[in-house]
């Protein structure tokens, strides 16, 4: 293979990437609506299950250290079936990346640039992502390191500011588990488990490049817990500020909550802070999915992934607009089709299928060495 660079990511960078990735678009659209006022409990349950999913991905990767999921497919199923699975995952990663990008474009077009064409927003955003990925994984890690303090503190400050503004009504959280545990479980599977926790499948392309692979397990679990806590905080903020009904109806509940902030009749309309959080989260999330797809192309074609950044990037912006005619259609597809027909097979079923084959094959090769 020619010109293929081995990139390394520090454990702190890995933690930040997972943290921002998980919050990314989950902070934009409302999650766990089926559980109503218990959405925060549903997110907590999904977080615990998400830790299990992350552990499963780590177990798969730890059997062949240094190899990503696509290389593991080839090891388990050979060149052709492994290549076919890789191709399916490339399409999956690109599809999800374009969906995430569409979330952001819709937000921008609805609230900030109301007369700018969505196509223009999509193309310019992809330019930023292409540039970052062309410079490599390490640049993505460093960029997230720089912006992390702002990202984290802005989310916390929004909650505190809404609280001080007196817009929070904690009665909205009651009754806790009023309808029992069933609505919570309905919200958890497949929706909350697959979005955002199961989407960690994209990190099977990144975790092998962590500097200390053995410690990556602890870091991944910690990042899942940290992002889960942040999402719970977010859900409580939205439910107490907007109420269950308004939260379910709002396209972008975090933004609607932030609009309630009014401090000293002076600090108002802090929407841009939310847009910053969302923009950065989306850039990282799309980049990680896009990187996963590029690594797949690198493996299939035996050429460096940088060759594909520009051509596939143009496809990404094309898909993000063509994926649906309007926001209602986009959300409908995201709630009905994507979790069942894309997330569950690619995030849970296929890795679960690979695991026994991998365990059997690696045990066989270890015995052979002995």
């Amino acid at each position: 293979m020619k010109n293929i660079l081995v990139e390394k990511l520090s454990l702190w960078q890995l933690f930040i990437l997972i943290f921002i990735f998980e919050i990314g678009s989950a902070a934009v659209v409302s999650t766990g609506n089926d559980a109503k006022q218990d959405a925060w409990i549903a997110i907590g349950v999904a977080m615990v299950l998400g830790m299990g999913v992350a552990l499963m991905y780590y177990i798969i990767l730890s059997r062949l250290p240094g190899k990503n999921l696509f290389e593991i497919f080839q090891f388990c199923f050979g060149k052709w079936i492994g290549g076919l699975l890789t191709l399916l995952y490339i399409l999956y990663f690109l599809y999800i990346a374009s969906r995430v990008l569409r979330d952001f474009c819709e937000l921008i077009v609805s609230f900030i640039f109301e007369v700018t064409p969505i196509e223009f927003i999509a193309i310019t955003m992809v330019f930023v992502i292409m540039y970052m990925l062309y410079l490599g994984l390490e640049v993505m890690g460093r960029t997230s390191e720089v912006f992390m303090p702002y990202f984290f503190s802005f989310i916390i400050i929004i909650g505190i500011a809404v609280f001080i503004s007196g817009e929070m009504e904690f009665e909205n959280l009651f009754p806790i588990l009023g309808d029992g545990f069933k609505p919570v479980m309905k919200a958890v599977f497949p929706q909350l488990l697959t979005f955002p926790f199961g989407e960690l499948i994209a990190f099977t392309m990144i975790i092998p490049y962590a500097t200390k692979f053995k410690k990556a397990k602890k870091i991944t679990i910690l990042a899942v817990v940290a992002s889960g806590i942040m999402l719970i905080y977010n859900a409580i903020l939205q439910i107490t500020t907007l109420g269950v009904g308004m939260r379910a109806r709002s396209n972008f509940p975090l933004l609607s909550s932030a609009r309630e902030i009014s401090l000293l009749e002076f600090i108002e309309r802090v929407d841009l802070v939310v847009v910053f959080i969302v923009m950065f989260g989306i850039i990282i999330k799309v980049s990680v999915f896009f990187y996963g797809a590029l690594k797949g192309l690198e493996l299939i074609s035996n050429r460096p992934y940088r060759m594909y950044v520009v051509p596939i990037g143009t496809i990404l912006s094309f898909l993000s607009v063509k994926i649906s005619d309007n926001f209602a259609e986009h959300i409908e597809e995201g709630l009905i089709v994507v979790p069942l027909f894309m997330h569950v097979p690619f995030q849970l079923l296929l890795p679960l299928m690979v695991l026994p084959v991998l365990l059997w094959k690696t045990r066989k090769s270890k015995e052979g060495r002995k």
Partner: protein
Amino acid sequence: MVTFLFTFILLASIGVIAMFDLFLYDRSLLAILGANIFFEKGTSQWMLYVNLLVGLIYGIVVDYRYRKSKKSSKSS
């Protein structure tokens, strides 16, 4: 290879989108494919097609340069 994979990924992705639309909405396959492949007149979707063209040309240039460098390394 870049051009080939560009074309393949583009067509396959359009296929995936069409499949979901077919599943969710009561429209014919041809109508869905037509809507996904061609752009609506009077909208700004032409930008996406110009962008795709840039991607295609970039792919062709990369392939040409790769082939050229391979040939020159073989001859030397």
